[in-house]
């Protein structure tokens, strides 16, 4: 009985893991987006949302992503709604890719990630710089986009492993 309870708890926990990681990343002070290193930063949240909404969208609800964006904006201190919009645009691209592809292809996903990152970072810069008149360092955005793109394969392997575990646990 106890092992049954334990296994059902594990099943629930593991199926909520992407959400937990997402909220932990936006709430926590530790941020891959700012490691205090010169010319190195990547956006972990973008990678997380891109992978999970592409490969297993049932685990990461759009409303929760919207909420995570609001929290991220408040914690970072930029006007509320900007991150949410960027995260949801990322979701739109993944939803579109899911609709047009029958068999997932890693390379195609990876290249579309680059275009999406360029698009959402451009939108963020335009909103911050031109509408809210908050000065931003363009080079930081470019570096961030570059490293986020480069790091996708590493996180793809990790998330894919986790996705398989989740599928195995939930189908068990």
């Amino acid at each position, binding site marked *: 009985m106890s092992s049954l309870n334990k296994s059902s708890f594990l099943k629930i926990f593991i199926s909520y893991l992407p959400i937990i990681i997402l909220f932990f990343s936006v709430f*926590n002070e530790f941020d891959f987006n700012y490691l205090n290193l010169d010319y190195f930063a990547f956006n972990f949240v973008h990678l997380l949302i891109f992978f999970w909404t592409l490969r297993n969208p049932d685990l990461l*609800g759009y409303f929760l992503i919207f909420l995570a*964006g609001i929290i991220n904006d*408040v914690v970072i201190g930029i006007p*509320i709604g900007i991150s949410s919009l960027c995260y949801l645009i990322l979701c*739109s691209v993944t939803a579109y890719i899911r609709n047009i592809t029958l068999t997932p292809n890693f390379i195609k996903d990876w290249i579309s990630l680059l275009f999406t990152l360029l698009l959402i970072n451009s939108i963020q810069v335009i909103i911050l710089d031109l509408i809210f008149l908050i000065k931003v*360092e363009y080079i930081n955005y470019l570096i961030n986009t570059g490293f986020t793109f480069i790091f996708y394969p590493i996180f793809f392997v990790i998330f894919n492993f986790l996705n398989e575990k989740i599928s195995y646990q939930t189908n068990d």
Partner: protein
Amino acid sequence: MATGRDDFVIAIRSAFLKKKDKQKFSLLTLIFVSIFVIVLSNFNFKIIQYLKLGINEIIYRSSYIASVPENKIREIVSDIRSHLNIYENHQKILIKNENIEQTKLLNNFLTAENKKLRKLIDESISSEEIFAKVLIDKDSPYLKSVILNKGTKDNVKIGMAVIDEVYLVGQIIEVNYTNSRALLLSDLNSKIPSVLEPDDIQAVVSGAGSNFGTIEHTQEDYKESLENKVVIAYTSGLGGLFKPGIPIGKIDIGSNGKIRFFSDFTQLNYVKILSFKVGGEK
């Protein structure tokens, strides 16, 4: 051709409007809500302000709690490092102490002289300090700021100077009921009226988005006049925002006008929020 366009339209429509089994909202709805929130946050309506304050209060507190384990680990690592470097640090402190003793004697005399001179021109400066704890220092490449645990209930106001020991670290830019946000000097949007000593040159210290600052709006040839000198930047007090004479940073010889801030913004735990009064001002 027409079929290809139809496929594209169907794919787009499906991506934006179709809800999957576990999705409660369609993407399009949420995108519109996000845009609506961005537009609303651009207005300064009372209701929106209160809503913003409420969200800030909840999220700052939650973020502080979520960061507790990480802060503990950071503390332990810092303690271990400090123990390992204990001998080296002790030697450095001994030398520093000797220098401080000498400077202190000179400083006492200058302070007394300064007080006397201010009395002569009938200008006295009094200041009040509010001690605050840094709740969150989640830096981002876009906005360098920290959250402090003092807000309107402790009489914190927008524009107040934030000080680490005696050094300026930033200014308050957002105040909630129990907490506030301070913009650090290193942020691109930070502009502090300052005076460059020893040559008494007025300038603006601007953040560079990195760990140093730059000098702006000053004499064209200031670099030549300060060549081969170590220059210290202090707040000038112009504009009435900051108390004059708070040390900001140092321009080293050959640093090409880059200001090295005295305070290490990554190590802020407790700070002082400073308000001041000049002469008989209320």
